[in-house]
């Protein structure tokens, strides 16, 4: 069907209308797929939210580690305070 149409067009087109040169487009053509853009937007949305949750998780892990250090230091200090003077 499309081959026949092309043939018809090429036969019917007067010689003056034939393309004699190829020019680059001056404006950006609309070649973006709506589905890909939608999926990208949706993926970015969740990726950013998950990244923020990940940052919060990391902060909490660091807090946990600092708290552990403080607890150990307090335990050591308590033991030292409770122990008899060695001198």
């Amino acid at each position: 069907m499309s081959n026949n149409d092309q043939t018809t067009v090429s036969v019917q087109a007067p010689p003056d209308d034939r393309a004699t040169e190829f020019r680059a487009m001056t404006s950006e053509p609309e070649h973006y797929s709506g589905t890909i853009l939608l999926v990208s937007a949706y993926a970015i949305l969740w990726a950013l939210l998950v990244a923020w949750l990940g940052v919060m998780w990391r902060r909490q892990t660091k807090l946990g580690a600092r708290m552990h250090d403080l607890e150990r230091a307090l335990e050591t200090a308590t033991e030292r305070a409770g122990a008899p003077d060695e001198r």
Partner: protein
Amino acid sequence: MAHARARVEGLAFVSLVAITAIAFVCEIFIVFLVAPTEARMGIVQKIFYFHVPSAYAMYLGATVCFVGSVLFLARSSDTADAIARAGAEAACVFGCIVMTTGPLWGAKAWGAFWTWDPRLTTALLSLLIYVAYLVLRGFAGDGEGERRFAAALGVMGAANLPIIHFSVQKWGGQHPVVITGNGGGLQHPAMKLGLALGFCAFTLLVILLVWLRTRVELATVRLARAERDAIDLEIDSKARA
């Protein structure tokens, strides 16, 4: 007493997580399976159901930051500062979502990812203010002066919000004005439902995330204070055994 309060808080938090999850499931169902495809733009218009609520979530985060900042400036307190910081982070994250989903829609609708449209420019400015806030808090330390300066930045960031909102009416531009005071331009009930659910889901998400972030911030402040007290008592928590 404190134990009972923590239990109630935990229960409220879990309930909020569950309600937010349900809201998002409903939102996704309505947007992708019920709401019709837009006649001119096609499927890419469905970005709208996340883009607009994200912008609204950014406004909410910025408002929380503003309230926290004003409270901090009025009466210096760790809670107000933690709320302001959490709000600024929410504004920044949702601002990033707005500034990425919008251009993806624009690529199809306008044929360009970015134009210096008044609304786009003012929204970018607002995002940069909150990025500046977070950079300041991240690198300048947690001294009283730094916190006051950040609070002033939080107040200034909120001043930009009405400018973003009314930029389309005042200066024109290409940005669509679908949501208006007199009913809006959504022509199908499922479209309206999808957007309404989006607003609900994102409101719940902002509340959840700001709450979570405020708790982390308050715990950090309390721990830092306990570490300072330990140092005053000559207990070195940084020393390794």
